[in-house]
């Protein structure tokens, strides 16, 4: 019976086996990080809008309140994107000839709404209600980030279910007093302070944390 395999085969096989094992581990690690990467979550994405609207300019520079444009945020599940007339309430007077604003004027003229691209988009099977969050102490900043520092609107949070749950499991530290909902740049409370002020706010808003992680809270 001849020797079928060369003397070196065994070493080669061991290297292959070891690297195969390593490859599986590496694959798992890579998959773990890809799953959380902006590539899949869309965090940090800046979609191109019909008009390059600058939140930084309007919010930080001019001090316009969020609710001026997003009118539904306290009353409906959907915060609402501003219609052309909202823009025109100022821009019929200011920068009336700016090239940048041509689509707005065009929209008014032809009576076709501007097609804003949604930046923070949740899956269809998620029932998200802006009113419930805003009227119960969750600030805009908690999910949308420092809008006042965004020349162009960018997805601030990963919007994964884990991210939602992080807050739903322990909403205390994220709560704000009713007056500070739309305020920007509120420092996250320190752990110790969050424990106390969060607790009083939980009582004040009558939030029952035991129901917040049930499936039906978000999937109906």
């Amino acid at each position: 019976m001849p020797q079928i395999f060369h003397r070196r085969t065994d070493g080669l096989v061991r290297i292959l086996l070891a690297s195969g094992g390593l490859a599986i581990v590496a694959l798992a690690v890579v998959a773990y990080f890809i799953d959380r990467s902006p590539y899949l979550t869309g965090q940090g994405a800046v979609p191109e809008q019909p008009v390059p609207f600058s939140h930084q300019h309007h919010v930080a520079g001019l001090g316009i309140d969020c609710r001026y444009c997003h009118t539904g945020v306290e009353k409906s599940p959907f915060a609402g994107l501003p219609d052309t007339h909202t823009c025109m309430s100022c821009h019929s007077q200011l920068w009336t000839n700016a090239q940048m604003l041509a689509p707005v004027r065009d929209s008014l003229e032809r009576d076709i709404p501007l097609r804003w691209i949604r930046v923070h988009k949740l899956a269809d099977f998620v029932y998200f209600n802006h009113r419930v969050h805003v009227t119960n102490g969750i600030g805009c900043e908690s999910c949308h980030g420092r809008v006042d520092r965004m020349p162009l609107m960018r997805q601030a949070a990963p919007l994964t279910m884990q991210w939602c749950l992080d807050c739903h499991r322990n909403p205390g530290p994220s709560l704000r007093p009713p007056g500070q909902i739309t305020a920007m740049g509120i420092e996250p409370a320190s752990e110790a302070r969050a424990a106390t002020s969060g607790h009083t706010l939980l009582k004040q808003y009558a939030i029952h944390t035991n129901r917040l992680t049930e499936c039906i809270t978000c999937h109906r």
Partner: protein
Amino acid sequence: MAENPQENLLPADLTHASMTERIAGLVLAPRSRGRWLLAFLVSAVLALLFVLCLVIVFATGVGLFGINIPVAWGFPIVNTIWWIGIAHAGTLISAVLLLTRQPWRAPVARLAEAMAMFAIVCAGFYAIVHLGRPQLMHFLLPYPNTMGLWPQWRSPLVWDFFAISTYFVFTLGFLYFSLLPDFATLRDRARSRWQQIFYGVLALGWRNSALHWARYEQANGVLAAVAAPIVVSVTGIISLDLAVSLVPGFHFPIFPPYFVAGALFSGFATVALLAVVTRSFYGLQDLITRRHLDYLGRMMLLFGLIVNYSYSQEIFTAWYSGDIYMRAVYLDRWTGPYAPAWWAMIFCNVVLLQFLWFRRVRRSPWALFALAITSNVGMWLERYQILFTSTHADFIPANWRTPLPTVWDGLLALASLGLFAFFLLAFVRLAPVVSMHDMRSAIHRREEQRKEQQQEQQKKQREDGE
């Protein structure tokens, strides 16, 4: 029972060399290629059809099947259970007969293991299809995901996933284990370079060392010992998919043992079927004897009778429960739109089964072949009627429907048979259909027995002489 079972189960003139020569020859230098090639081509076409159907079903969705609320499950789960059942006897024959040292195991064990392997492949495909959204199959695994979620451990679907994947790995391992020394035998006898490399790689450098064998036997013993719990738990768990629900017709505590018995019944029927075909195809009548068929027939009878017992218990309990819904399900099974399936099942699994009480029927290859087919049909009908009759008329009469299978149901089912045949035909071309090392051990044991008998006779003669 004959006094010396070994004697009749092995041809008297069989030696290590002649047996190895014959079995290895079937693989290394096959003679009857024409019929094999024809069968292989037909099955390859069907296997391609299976892949095609699978792609279309995955791309379009399970709406192609004849399922809709209230019958949400239909064919895919029927066929999953059916294929898993067929796989079971393979495992059981090989493992339990090994543990209990049954002398008739050796020639049929390999067929049984291979059958188990390919049946579980078919079952696995169907299990994935029946999920409805196969692309999300990984949700069944507990892994750190961005949803912060875990699988729902109280759900039988998750149990299924663990059960079927464990069973798959076990079957693969057990088959490969049993093949390992045989691959070495083929490697040693191969003449062409390609065959040497092919079997050389598969044999992993096995050298028939006594220490190799000792560890091999120990490991095989462990695998065989876990086989029975695996067999029982896999089908048991699958049956819990149905039984833990509140649906009358599904909700029976007897389901786990009943499904296990049903699985073994159809599985032994399939082993018998393959044994009859293989022995006539390869001319192995002297290795797979009529006594082997007799044993297979007995096993069919045993598990068939347990299935019959379960039918009786179900019917009695449905009535005894006093629950009008349970009783209604049974009336519907007997007289409703699916009644033909129920009565056909009773005909196949209860009426025809009783023929197996007769020794002549068990020992006749073609009678056994026919009964094996009717038993498999009967077991398929059993799963079909359980799935459809229990759900098609639910608690709200406005929901009642009578869904029938669509052409996709039929095509995929037919093609899955082709896929099974395709794998099996490829297997018998590449690997020995009879386990050569088990046969060598069996021959050795027979020689030992002969020697003992001779010694005893000599002793007797001496004593008589004195």
